[in-house]
């Protein structure tokens, strides 16, 4: 069936009339197999995304915790090294 397009707003000059077809192709009847596989793929994808996110979240937190600890240790060592260097340098501007 050809549905007449309600395109009154499109005849305004300010909008480009991109949809130039005067008659619309009737919608395709999708086979049930394709519909079934599509929506089951969507569901499986949602489950996969959720489970992977739940797996990755604690792993990332652990990594961040370890990183912050190592950073503290490194800064402590650097501070000690800096103080030693300042104490041992020969300069008259002390």
């Amino acid at each position: 069936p050809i549905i007449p397009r309600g395109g009154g707003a499109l005849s305004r000059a300010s909008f480009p009339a991109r949809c130039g077809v005067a008659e619309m192709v009737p919608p395709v009847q999708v086979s049930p197999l394709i519909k079934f596989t599509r929506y089951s793929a969507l569901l499986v994808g949602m489950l996969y995304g959720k489970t992977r996110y739940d797996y990755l979240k604690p792993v990332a937190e652990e990594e961040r915790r370890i990183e912050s600890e190592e950073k503290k240790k490194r800064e402590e060592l650097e501070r000690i090294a800096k103080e030693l260097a300042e104490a041992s340098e020969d300069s008259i501007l002390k």
Partner: protein
Amino acid sequence: MAQAAQRLIQRVATQAPQLASAAVTYSRPRLATFWHYAKVELVPPTPAEIPKAIDSMKAMVKSFQSGHLAQLTVKEALRNGLVATEVLMWFYIGEIIGRGSLIGYNV
């Protein structure tokens, strides 16, 4: 400087509703077209269609076993490949929804 800011705010206040109404009038027929097609093509399968889907899957498996592959034209094979790719992309869209972010996991 303050006057220019005032004029700008006045212009925004008067033209924002115009812009909004223009956007609505622009999008309404296009949304109607989209809905007209989506109502038939993108609707999920009803429970009555699931046995039909299983039957077509069994028929597909049987036809592959009986050597129908030799009679497949390249055009048909390309078309089936495109459909399979589209079904695969729905998995990735589901993954985007499941992990709650558009790009990558926000851990």
